[in-house]
């Protein structure tokens, strides 16, 4: 009877990977973050499609496709690896679409895509290096270059077939719009900015998945509410109510989806509060005393420019940090 020997399988050392610690990862990725944000934008997009019809869907699709095609075209031209799968171009495309009126001509979408992807992102070195939110660069570029197209607003289906265009709530006289309409989105405006409820659902998704710093929307919306509230209290016949200010004019879209863009907003919580307050104050000033009825895009771009400075002055005190002066005294 021969002795049975169980053979033990041992690791093959030639197939072991050697790399630096840590050796496990949480499993988060850029791609997952981007697609979760897209998911959070869906309610507002669906509301836009519901109120503005297939025209809204066409704008969203065309913007998204152009952003992806332009990004890949640029990558080819620059002999770089494909990047569309990271989801950032798709996100920019949808965001751009949400920032347009449902009735814009098709070429506006493509022009917007070029502005967003090339001017807003690639010229600075691509994802992670752009100082300004690409979708906003496109929106503001279009607003300045094509003011008539960009300030004509389709009416919603509930307004009846004979009404083709309308004004945004902030473009009307104070008190002319119903709060209920602003909540559900039955008002004129960019196709993704009108439904407050849908935007709040999306915002809740972003906060639940910890994809944004909640300090930004809170400080942004809070400061607009307070400042416009004071103005309204002083002169309600000239100034809109703070509720109208918060529920319309793209404030919720801006506060939850654009001011919170990771690349272009501060990294620390302290910085996020300053950034949000800055956006809120700028928006209020533009809306109350500026020549535009809406100031969300301009104020976010302005604060984007300040982000590096905010980051610099809000550096956390490292654990165990002693100021050099104190050390010398000892």
């Amino acid at each position: 009877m021969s002795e049975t020997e169980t053979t033990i399988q041992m690791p093959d050392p030639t197939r072991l990977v050697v790399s630096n610690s840590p050796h496990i990862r949480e499993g988060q990725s850029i791609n997952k973050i981007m697609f979760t944000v897209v998911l959070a934008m869906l309610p507002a997009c669906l509301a836009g499609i519901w109120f503005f019809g297939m025209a809204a869907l066409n704008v969203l699709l065309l913007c998204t496709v152009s952003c992806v095609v332009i990004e890949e075209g640029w990558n080819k031209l620059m002999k770089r690896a494909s990047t569309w799968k990271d989801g950032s171009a798709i996100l920019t495309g949808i965001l751009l679409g949400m920032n347009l009126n449902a009735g814009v001509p098709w070429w506006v979408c493509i022009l917007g895509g070029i502005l967003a992807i090339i001017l807003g992102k690639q010229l600075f070195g691509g994802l992670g290096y752009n100082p300004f939110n690409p979708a906003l660069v496109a929106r503001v570029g279009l607003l300045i270059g094509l003011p008539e197209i960009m300030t004509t607003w389709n009416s919603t289906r509930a307004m009846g077939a004979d009404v083709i265009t309308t004004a945004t709530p902030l473009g009307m006289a104070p008190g002319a719009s119903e709060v209920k309409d602003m909540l559900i989105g039955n008002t004129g405006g960019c196709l993704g900015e009108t439904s407050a409820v849908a935007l709040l659902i999306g915002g809740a998704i972003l906060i639940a998945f910890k994809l944004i710093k909640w300090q930004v929307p809170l400080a942004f919306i809070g400061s607009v509410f307070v400042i416009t509230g004071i103005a309204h209290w002083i002169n309600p016949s000239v100034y809109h109510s703070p509720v109208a200010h918060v529920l319309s004019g793209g404030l919720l879209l801006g506060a939850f989806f654009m001011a919170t863009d990771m690349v272009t907003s501060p990294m620390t919580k302290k910085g996020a509060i300053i950034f949000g307050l800055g956006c809120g104050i700028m928006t209020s000033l533009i809306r109350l005393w500026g020549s535009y009825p809406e100031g969300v895009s301009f104020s976010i771009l302005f604060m984007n420019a300040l982000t590096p400075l905010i980051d610099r002055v809000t550096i956390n005190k490292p654990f165990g940090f002693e100021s050099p002066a104190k050390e010398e005294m000892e």
Partner: protein
Amino acid sequence: MSDKPRKFKGGVHPNDSKALSATKPIQDAPLLETYKVIMHQNIGAPPELVVSKGDVVKKGELLAKATGFVSVPLHAPTSGTIKAIDKCPGPTGMAVPAIEITADGEDVWGSPFEPIADWTNTDPAELKQRVWDAGVVGMGGAGFPMHVKLSPPEGKKIDTLILNGAECEPYLTADHRLMLEQAEEVALGAAIVARILGLETAVIGVEDNKPDAIKMLEEVAGKYNVRVQGLPVNYPQGAEKQLIYAITGREVPIGKLPMDVSCVVQNVASAVAVADAVVKGLPSIERITTVTGKPVVNPGNWRFRIGTPIEKALELVGGVNEQPAKLLLGGPMMGIAQNSLGVTVMKNTSGILLIATDEVSLYTSEPCIRCGRCVEVCPMSILPATISQAVENKRFDWAEELNVLACIECGSCSYVCPSHRPLNQHFKRGKIEIQAQLRKKK
């Protein structure tokens, strides 16, 4: 009676995977035919050989003696013949000098010193000398000579001794089993170290995920006048600075040592090594190591002699079910990846860990999207994202200004980074470059 521990800012919660080995009692590894004892097992100067090829040694006999204050002696893991003074793969991937011993199978004791039974009446200086003679080092990972930590320079008063039983690294359960099975030795070691430092008491910090160990320790705590402190489960709770903060609320200044805030921190396994050295007269030639990982057939906790090749340790656990992606010494957050099974167990080998291929992926580092997750989890509250970019651009001055030297290399930032950036690697590089420049200036 425990005070509420303070929570440090940041930290991560990886899946701890301790269930693989947490219930496995410590087993004594059987005697091997050959041991390869790596010469330099401590931070500081390597010891100097006192044996040569062909010498016959007994278990516990001196192999190499300390060569200065920051150096410790090395002792034979078993009785036998010195077969060669050779090289062996070291934990950092380079071949290192090692003493190869062919065991005679008798395992005859030849300990160089006597037990000190009445340690409560022994001069602390004599106890400290024993700790040094026994070659005790920090067994939590760094391998810093124990007696050096117990010798605060003139003017530095120590008022708190903390024993580190946090074991916050995922997978590792060696300290957990030790506290559970040898609670009394842990407390005894703590009491001896406290006496050396001139203290009445010590605090043993244990993460709350080991309630059984906390209970065992509390049962013996009164007898040795030590206190057990439960700690919130948050990696890296077991990092020296975070542990001191949790228990005392003191922040060790950047670039300074625990003694600068009047604290001494020792790993629980080191405390047991002290107890063994003093009360039993045993030199430090053993350590408890967790051999674990998903690919391992039968994960467990083993008492290995120093010089045990990893290959033999893996045979004891039945080998592997599948080819692993990585072999680590230590835990998954801070362990060192190996490419050889010839590395041998050292005094600070807390774990031999195999990582399965489905637990790791080959990542391509993508651009930083400034999400700020690294900033949020950093236990030192520095800016990993920005420092990493500074190092990438060789702006070491900027990295230094952003306090890269405060980094404790816990890996939390890399763990959460959605762009899979090699942040920890950048910091290690940044620190090396800055320290090289500082040396040049001097």
